[in-house]
């Protein structure tokens, strides 16, 4: 902003956080639209708040997925369901 020579560095402020972050979140959720990949790469390369938001959102999704899906189904549940089905047949 105050120095044009730092064009290879990311800008520290995002002009449109709400819209950008919504887009980033959609992309992380697999809701891609044509051109969204390119737009994502551009944001990540040029905008620090977008870069940080993207990576934070990404890691939260990863830890949720790896740490919150480990409830083992009780062994007897499947048998119990099959038995009940037999009864209503």
């Amino acid at each position, binding site marked *: 902003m105050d120095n044009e020579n730092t064009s290879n560095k990311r800008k520290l402020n995002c002009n449109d*956080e*709400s819209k950008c*972050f*919504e887009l980033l*979140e*959609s992309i992380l*959720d*697999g*809701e891609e639209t044509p051109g969204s990949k390119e737009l994502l790469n551009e944001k990540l390369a040029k905008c620090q*708040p977008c870069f*940080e*938001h993207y*990576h*934070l*959102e990404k*890691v*939260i*999704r990863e*830890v*949720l*997925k790896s*740490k*919150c*899906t*480990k*409830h*083992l*189904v*009780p062994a007897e*549940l*499947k048998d*119990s*369901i099959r038995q*009940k*089905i037999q009864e*209503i*047949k």
Partner: protein
Amino acid sequence: MSEVQRKKYSDKEKNSIFDHEFMPHIDSMYNFAFRLTFDEDDAKDLVQDTYLKAYRFINSFEKGTNAKAWLFRILKNSFINEYRKKSKQPSKVDYQEVETYYNSDNVDYNMTSDLRVDAVKDMLGDEISNALNSLAVDFRTVIILCDLEGFTYEEMAKILDIPIGTVRSRLHRARNLLKDKLRSYAENMGYDTEEE
């Protein structure tokens, strides 16, 4: 899901659909049920009821379509109609979460800016899990459906009977609440190892 033409499956077809299209989702169904009810027995009952309903209404399921979304929708409706009333979780938790959110005005993004990627990575499974469980059920549900189960916005809209725009905004709010929680855990980790 939208009304589908009723089929007339033979017993053999019914069993095949049940075994090959419904039962493979039981892990996800149980995880969802457990995170809704917080109780192993309630979760078992909820999953069992869902499967019995699925079998009873199997003729309204079109073979080869999205069985997982169909089952999740039944489970969600069963939960709302039968289990939510007798849920062992006090509603004040939900209320407080909603309050926290609505009192936060428009600081939406700034309030989570000090949550670091490394802090999230270092968190224990219990902390992540507790943070998720602490969210009001509507917020918790969208995160489970999206992040744990990988449903699309469109599938979530059908499962929850809400417009896609509502899915999007609810998810965004849910994520902000979750980040709030995670941030407070991160702060605690940073201060001292001594438990409160």
